[in-house]
């Protein structure tokens, strides 16, 4: 049994396995499946200042080894979250992060301020990379000045760990990561989904109501791994790896590439127990390879 705990710039995780926003509901949906306290942490659904109905149906398309989604941040708004969901989360003894999105910098600020009041929320994951909303969303994550502006603004009002979630839809993700680091982010998580599209040939229609959506799942793992590797070589803050992680071997690859923790996303749909198998598998890997702690393999790729 190796040491699995890790500190992500103030977030003390009992193990490096978290679950990704938008793929884990509010956590409570998993109560039937396993004890949530076994997780290093979990990130709840994308939350915005105002309630959002999300995009119209259809919102999902299956693709080779992956899927597209165009949920569009359906959520009840931060007030609804604080009043109706937050109280149900108090029972859990793990790191709960809220994934925050907005159409304007002001919305991000207002939302973050309210979350700052919630003691039991360990941190914010700032989503500057959602490809499925018309305004804001990904726009903040694809230009350095925009990313800087929103991170600086939120940093002023939010005093707990601030993780910034990066978009892969850029020419140079290290530029964005460096900008975000300089603006006060405590850590970065990557990647969000890749902007993509599906067409139904027989009906000659787009599969998604929004035409384009975000690609996730094993298909994007090689891209995510490359970006985690590039970013972790460039920034000093911890990197959280996300993208197509289905099993512990995938997770190990991300640690080797430089991730200090990982998030399990689409894998939750294929197997709600995925995060549990991953935790066990990481432990087994470390034991087999005689590592005493997860820290020994972070960035441990042998070139």
């Amino acid at each position, binding site marked *: 049994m190796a040491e699995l705990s890790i500190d992500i710039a103030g977030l003390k995780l009992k193990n490096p396995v978290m679950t990704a926003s*938008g*793929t*884990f*509901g509010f956590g409570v*949906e*998993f109560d*039937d*499946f396993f004890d949530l306290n076994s997780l290093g942490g979990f990130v709840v*659904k994308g939350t915005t200042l105002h309630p959002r*109905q*999300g995009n119209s*149906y*259809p*919102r*999902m*398309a*299956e*693709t*080779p*080894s*992956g*899927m597209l*989604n165009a*949920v569009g941040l*359906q959520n009840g708004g931060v007030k609804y979250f604080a009043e109706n969901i937050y109280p149900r989360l108090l029972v859990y003894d793990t790191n709960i992060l809220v994934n925050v999105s907005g159409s304007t910098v002001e919305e991000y600020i207002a939302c973050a301020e309210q979350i700052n009041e919630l003691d039991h929320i360990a941190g914010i994951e700032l989503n500057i990379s959602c490809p499925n909303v018309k305004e804001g969303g990904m726009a903040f994550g694809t230009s350095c000045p925009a990313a800087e502006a929103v991170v600086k603004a939120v940093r002023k009002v939010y005093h707990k760990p601030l993780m910034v979630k990066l978009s892969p839809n850029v020419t140079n993700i290290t530029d964005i990561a460096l900008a975000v680091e300089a603006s006060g982010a405590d850590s970065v998580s990557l990647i969000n989904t890749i902007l993509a599209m599906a067409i139904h040939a027989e009906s000659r229609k787009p599969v998604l109501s929004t035409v384009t959506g975000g690609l996730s*799942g*094993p298909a994007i793992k090689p891209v995510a791994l490359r970006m985690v590797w590039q970013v972790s070589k460039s920034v000093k803050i911890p990197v959280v790896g996300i993208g197509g992680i289905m099993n512990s071997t995938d997770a190990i690859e991300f640690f080797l590439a430089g991730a200090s923790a990982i998030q399990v996303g*689409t894998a*939750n*749909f*294929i*197997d*709600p*127990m995925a995060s549990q198998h991953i935790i066990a598998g990481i432990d087994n890997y470390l034991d087999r390879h005689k590592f005493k702690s997860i820290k020994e393999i972070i960035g441990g790729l042998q070139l």
Partner: protein
Amino acid sequence: MNKSSSFTKTKLSTYTGLPNPILAIFAHYSNAIYLRMKKSVQNLKVVSNQRLNKDHALLELKSEVLLEGILPGQFANILVDKSQKVFLRRPFSIFQVDYKCNSIFILIKGIGEGTKALSKSLVGDTLSVIFPLGRGYTFPAKRSKVLLVGGGVGIAPLMLLATMLKQDNHQIEILLGARTGEDLVELENFAKYGTIHTTTEDGSHGTEGFVTNHALFGEELKSFDRIYTCGPEPMMKAVARLAHLNSVDCEVSLENTMACGYGVCLCCVTETTGGHRCVCTDGPVFDIKQLKWQN
């Protein structure tokens, strides 16, 4: 909202054993408190796979974990690991439950990659199944005359429904529609729970036409306390319209493309009076009043 939640602890006092040879004996329910079964991921063993016609197969899947109360209309999300092209699980209604053998039955119509691969499962194969999922049909509070209307593979959730309604001693008429007589399956088993009527588009079995062309949708419709339906959306909409016109309660079971099946991805929404709702958790069964389907 959906009344099925009231079934998490219900006394099904009218239960009697079932004579159906291939199907369940609900000894578990008999005079017992009905407990909601927790959803879980299980590796179920394929104990039989009967081919019913050219595209329908009936799988029996045995669990190692004691099955508890499963409601009609609830579904199972099944992993397809033998096809290279299928990534996500595929949802299927729980067709029947055999508590004695601790197994569930799944009726599969092969239409695409996933359903075709699953319908070729071999006895001895293991399938990863998440179940039971979703809210099922609700039961009338008093003895009622009910109509079950199934179209195509939409008959799937109606078998367990008929089984349990019969336990509750309701008066059951069952109307099943298909393209041709060949496409109608499991009529004999349905006949054990109620009076069977059929329609086929080519007139090869029962009334010619769609289910709504059947005489049951004429004057007699008003005599029913409730209609339960599952099938292609246009069919269900036609049934819902007539139910509404005749002021008969009606519950429909919706299909939708699902990623998770248990309420965390928000991909399977449908428009309801309460806004976007997930078919996998707020449904698949909805009262037509919740949808905007009355007209």
